[in-house]
């Protein structure tokens, strides 16, 4: 059974149609990459999947249950969420932040049990932040904060993690640290991952580590292409989605081929740029 099964959903803000007739499935152990320019509706689509927004039409099945009818506890135990960035109002410690991932597992009027704390410590260890666990979250760097949010998602122990541009504000090094952490988690824990991103190369990165990867291109409210990176992230695909002429290169990364999209030139005549 698919973890997430989205069937023909449409969403609009008033008269403005954000997307229509979107369908896709996410299987265990799979990475589902959502590509598209800014403002194309990636975040709205993820919000619908998370149950935070209700689509105008269509149905979303989460582990076989209609998402509109499930209790929020079921949704939280099925999907965890890593936002693009989290503006911390209160400087909770890293540990307190991660512990909040246990909320769905804790009886309503209770506080976290020792088991919940153990699970949180383990999640912190997995992302390599053990030494910072008692530091205020707000004093960490952007990349470290993103790792905290990932640890929180892990503590939630849901089979799917949904990430909305998790590397959007990170520097070169931290983008890679976050990516590597995510990749290891998918591989070792068999998690499924839905990730919206601006970097097509991230899909190739997952693929080169033998993770079943699907790329979907959201353009003008529809999926124009979806499938394995090889078939979607082509020169044509990149041209339609971003209005950019590009070339796809492949090099040998210790025996595993790693592909890369290299942008070459913007196209003016297409009128495709947002």
């Amino acid at each position, binding site marked *: 059974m698919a973890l997430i099964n989205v069937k023909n959903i449409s969403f609009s803000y008033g008269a403005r149609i954000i997307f229509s007739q979107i369908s896709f499935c996410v299987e265990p152990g799979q990475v589902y990459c959502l590509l598209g320019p800014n403002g194309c509706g990636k975040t709205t689509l993820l919000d619908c999947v*998370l149950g935070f927004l209700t689509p105008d039409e269509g149905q979303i099945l989460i582990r076989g249950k209609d998402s509109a009818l499930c209790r929020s506890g079921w949704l939280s135990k099925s999907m965890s969420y890593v936002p693009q960035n989290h503006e911390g109002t209160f400087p909770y410690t890293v540990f307190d932040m991660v512990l909040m991932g246990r909320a769905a597992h804790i009886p309503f009027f209770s506080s976290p049990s020792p088991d919940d704390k153990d699970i949180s410590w383990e999640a912190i260890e997995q992302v390599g932040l053990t030494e910072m666990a008692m530091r205020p979250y707000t004093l960490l760097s952007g990349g470290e904060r993103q790792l905290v949010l990932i640890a929180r998602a892990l503590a939630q122990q849901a089979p799917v993690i949904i990430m909305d541009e998790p590397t959007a504000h990170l520097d070169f090094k931290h983008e890679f640290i976050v990516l590597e952490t995510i990749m290891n988690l998918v591989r070792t824990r068999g998690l499924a991952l839905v990730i919206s991103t601006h970097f097509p190369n991230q899909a190739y990165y997952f693929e080169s580590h033998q993770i079943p990867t699907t790329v979907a291109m959201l353009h003008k409210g529809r999926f124009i292409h979806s499938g394995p990176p090889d078939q979607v992230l082509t020169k044509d695909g990149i041209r339609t989605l971003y209005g950019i002429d590009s070339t796809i290169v492949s090099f040998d990364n210790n025996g595993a081929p790693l592909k890369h999209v290299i942008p070459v030139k913007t196209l003016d005549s297409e009128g495709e740029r947002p």
Partner: protein
Amino acid sequence: MSLSQVFAIGVEGLFYPFQNHTDIAYAVIMDIRLPRAIIGALVGGALAVSGTAFQGLFKNPLVSSGILGVSSGAGFGAALGILLFHRVSATYPLALFFGMFAVFLSYMIGRIYQKTPAIMLVLGGVIVSSVFSALISLVKYVADPYEQLPAIVFWLMGSLAGAQLEDLSIAGPPIILGALGLYLVRFRINVLSMGDKEAHTLGAHMGLTKALVIVCATLATAGAVSVSGVIGWVGLIIPHIGRMVVGNDNRILIPVSFSMGASFLLLIDIASRVLTGSEIPIGILTALFGAPFFVYLLKKTKGRGW
């Protein structure tokens, strides 16, 4: 009078409460000072704990216990009570009712959008507060300027001077119920402070938690305001002082806020009685004493996690 005498009278009152006591010292301690101290502690605790809860709920450290209009609503209720019934005792139930009614209105305004986003609630609170402030002005305008108007003005300044044992039966239950409710959901307040979307994805019953926090904080604040009048500052600043001392985790901060608020108001109440010959309204002193203390704490703890 020595401390041991006070203690002895306390013990006597505890074990033989129904004996006929004629002692003046006994009357002062058991009938005047003790009820006032208990009510003061409850009021301070209630204001501080609901301020903490609201700051978490609205993820805004500038929010205080009066954010959803409870103070203005209660103020209007009290003013109306003084205007219509000429008796201070009439103010309690009316203040309690209008305090809660004001929050209900704010909540309904916030519900215009289906999901009750925090920002709409705050806006609802601003609207309702301004309406009730206008109504308070109206009541002041039509009140008898020699007796009613001063009574209203004094009530709005906040005071524990009239506190009696009977007031406990009005203010006690909502304050204790509200504070207890907030204590039970204190971990959920952490989760709510992550913002609407993250709170939704983190888990379980966000709408219910929000409503519960609002109901509990309102009960506690309305109970407090109905006996003490409007006492500012406590519900805004005590939560911050708590954060400086024990950190941000509401699991610890909620009980600490209550106890700090209670202690703070007790101290201020004592100061209000002994500083000058006549009593100074406590609402004035909370700010005059609290502000420098807060600045001192800011200076002392700067950069440490708060």
